[in-house]
C-alpha cells in the first residue's frame, strides 16, 4: 500500500464541524444514512445528528464472532464493517417487481412497480463496499437489461467514503486489491484523524458539497498522519486469499475432498451469502390478494445454499451442502471472472465473521488450492 499524499488535494474539517456535513447534505435534499449502534452491531440507518454516530466505539471480530466495545477515544469511524452496508439500500431484501389484476372476464393487466428513489447520502462507506458496489452495478445496472429499481436507487445515491484504519481480524481487502484506501467511486472521501477529518471530493456533486463545508486547507502533517494510519491498517490485516484469479484452480478441483469436509461443518444457513456485499441471487414469488382480484409479483434475496435455488422439475441440481458450498466458492472466486472480469470477493470478511460456525473463506480456499 503506497499512498501518495502530495497529489491529493484535501481539506480539513474539524471534528466539531461534522454536523455541518449532515446539515449540508440534508439541505441539498439527501436523507443521510450512516453507521449507528443497534442490537450490538454497527448498522447503517438514518442519521440526522453527528452525535448519533458510534463515537468511541470499536469492534473485535473473529470467525463466527462480533463484539463492540467502547475504547476508541473521540473517533466515530474507528471500526471495521458490520453485517451490512450498501447492498440492502440498492438491492432491496424484498420488493415488488410488478402487480397484475384480473377482471371478471379473466383479462389481465400488468403494472410495473414504481421505485420511489429518494436521494440518499451514505456516510462511512468503506473501500471494500465501493468495490462491491462496482460489481453490483455491473450485474444489475450495466447489462443489456438493467434492473429499474436498482438503477433508480443507484442514480439517487451520494457516497461519502471513509478510508479504513481499523480492519478487523477477518478483513483481507489488501489481498483482493480493494482496500483499505478508497481510490474511486465516491463523491466525498474522509480520513479520520484525532482532530478531525481530511475531506476529498471524488465527483462534481461531491465538490459542490465540499465547497459548502467550513474547511481549511489540510496541512502536510495531517495528510501524512492520515496516510500513515491507512497504511498501518493495511499492514495489520491478518488474512489473505492465495491469489486474485483462482478460477482455473478451483474449477480443476471440483472433486477435492475438502468440499465434503467443509460440508460437515457448514450449516447451509445462507448467512454468508446474505452478508456478502456482492452476492446477487434472488427468488421471485407471487402474493395474490385473498379475494383473487390482484397479485403482487415480488422478489427477495435468495442464496445458492437453498434448495429452491437450483430447483428444476424433479429436484434440485445441488441437493447437498457439498454441492452448495462448492457453487458458492467456485462462483465467488471463479465464475465471476467469466461474468464480470474479476473475482466476486472484495475481502470484507463478513462471511467469516457472520458464519455462525466461523467457516473462513480464506482458509477453505487455501486448503482447496494448495498443491
Amino acid at each position: 500500500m503506497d499512498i501518495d499524499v502530495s497529489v491529493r488535494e484535501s481539506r480539513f474539517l474539524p471534528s466539531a464541524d461534522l454536523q455541518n456535513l449532515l446539515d449540508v447534505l440534508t439541505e441539498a435534499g439527501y436523507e443521510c444514512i450512516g453507521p449507528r449502534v443497534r442490537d450490538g452491531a454497527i448498522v447503517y440507518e438514518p442519521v440526522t445528528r453527528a452525535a448519533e454516530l458510534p463515537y468511541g466505539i470499536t469492534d473485535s471480530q473473529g470467525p463466527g464472532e462480533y463484539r463492540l466495545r467502547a475504547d476508541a477515544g473521540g473517533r466515530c469511524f474507528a471500526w471495521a464493517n458490520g453485517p451490512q452496508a450498501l447492498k440492502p439500500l440498492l438491492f432491496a431484501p424484498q420488493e415488488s417487481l410488478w402487480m397484475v389484476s384480473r377482471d371478471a372476464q379473466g383479462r389481465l393487466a400488468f403494472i410495473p412497480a414504481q421505485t420511489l428513489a429518494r436521494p440518499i447520502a451514505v456516510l462511512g462507506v468503506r473501500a471494500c463496499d465501493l468495490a462491491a458496489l462496482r460489481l453490483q452495478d455491473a450485474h444489475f445496472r450495466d447489462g443489456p437489461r438493467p434492473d429499474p429499481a436498482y438503477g433508480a436507487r443507484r442514480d439517487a445515491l451520494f457516497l461519502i467514503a471513509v478510508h479504513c484504519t481499523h480492519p478487523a481480524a477477518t478483513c483481507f481487502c489488501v489481498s483482493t486489491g480493494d482496500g483499505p484506501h478508497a481510490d474511486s467511486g465516491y463523491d466525498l472521501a474522509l480520513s479520520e484523524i484525532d482532530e478531525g477529518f481530511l475531506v476529498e471530493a471524488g465527483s462534481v456533486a461531491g465538490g459542490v458539497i465540499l465547497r459548502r463545508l467550513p474547511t481549511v486547507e489540510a496541512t502536510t502533517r495531517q495528510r501524512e498522519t492520515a496516510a500513515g494510519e491507512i497504511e498501518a491498517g493495511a499492514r495489520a490485516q491478518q488474512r489473505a486469499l492465495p491469489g486474485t484469479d483462482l478460477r482455473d484452480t478451483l474449477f480443476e478441483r471440483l472433486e477435492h475432498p475438502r468440499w465434503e469436509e467443509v460440508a460437515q461443518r457448514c450449516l447451509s444457513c445462507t448467512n454468508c451469502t446474505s452478508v456478502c456485499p456482492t452476492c446477487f441471487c434472488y427468488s421471485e414469488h407471487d402474493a395474490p390478494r385473498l379475494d383473487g382480484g390482484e397479485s403482487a409479483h415480488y422478489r427477495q434475496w435468495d442464496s445458492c445454499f437453498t434448495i429452491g435455488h437450483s430447483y428444476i422439475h424433479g429436484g434440485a441440481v445441488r441437493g447437498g451442502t457439498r454441492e452448495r458450498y462448492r457453487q458458492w466458492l467456485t462462483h465467488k472466486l471463479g465464475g465471476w471472472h467469466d461474468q464480470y472480469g474479476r473475482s466476486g470477493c472484495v475481502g470484507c470478511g463478513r462471511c467469516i465473521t457472520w458464519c455462525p460456525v466461523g467457516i473462513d473463506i480464506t482458509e477453505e480456499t487455501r486448503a482447496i488450492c494448495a498443491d
Partner: protein
Amino acid sequence: MRTEPWSNPHLPQEAEIVERIDESDRVFTLKLRFTDSTQHDAYRFAPGQFNMLYLYGVGEVPISIVSDPEHDELLDHTIRRVGRVTDGIAALKTGDRLGVRGPYGRGWPLRELEGKDVLIVTGGLGCAPSVSVIQYMMRRRARFGTVTILQGVKHYHDLLWRARYEEWAHTPRTRVMFSADTGGPLWPWHVGPVTGLFEHIDLEPGSTLALLCGPEGMMAATVRALRGLGLADSAIWLSLERSMHCAVGQCGHCQLGGKFVCKDGPVFAYSDIAPLFSEKGL
C-alpha cells in the same frame, strides 16, 4: 443521471390461449397470441429460445417456443405437467389469459447449420427445444444437407408427434429413427439408449453439426459417442436445462460455472461448456 425512465425487464404481457392441443395425458400445447396486436406483430424469436409463461397469481415457468418464427402466426408452447405452475396451466382452456415475456436466451446456430449435414439427437420430452429448429430446416430444406433425427424415449408410450415425425421422414434427404429404453409389442424400432442408433447411421464428421437436447445424462452419453465418431467439440450443440427463473441473467439460479444459462444459453456449443458440462451437482 438518466432522464428517461428505466424500463422493466420483468414485466409480462397479456396473451390469450387461441388453441389448446392435448399431446398426451401429461403434455399439452398452447397456441398463444398477445392480446395487444402491436405487441404480437412486433414479437420476434429464434428457434431454441424460450418464453416465461405466467399463471395468474401463481408464478412463472420457462417454456421453449416450438412454432416457426416466420411461418406461424401463433406462439406455440409445448408443456409437460411437472409441478404446481404447470399443473395449474394445464387447467387453462381456450380463451384464458396468461402472462408472457420473452423471448430469452440464445437459440440454435442457424447460420452455422446452412449447407451442413445436421444430426439431431433428442431424449424424451426434452425434444421440445429441437422441434422449432427441425421445422425451420424442413420448411427451408434446400439450404441444409442431410438431416438425421434420432429420438429416444424412456417408454414407448412417451413418443409424441408421430404424425409430425412421419411427415419429416418423408421429406427428401431426411431420416428419422427412434429408440425406447422400454419397448413393447407395437414398437418396431430400436430398444435401448438413443446412442445405440449411431451404428445405423453414417456421419461425415467434417461436415456435420449435431444438435442435442434432453436429459443431461443422455446428452453426456451422446457427446461421448459423437466425439468418438470424430465430431469436433465446436460442432456439437446442446440445449441445457437449468432453473431459469428471472430469465434476464440476474437472479443467479441458472448458473453453470461462469455462464448464465438463461442468457448465455440455453443453446451452447459443447466447446464453450466442455469442462463443466454434466459435472454432477454443478
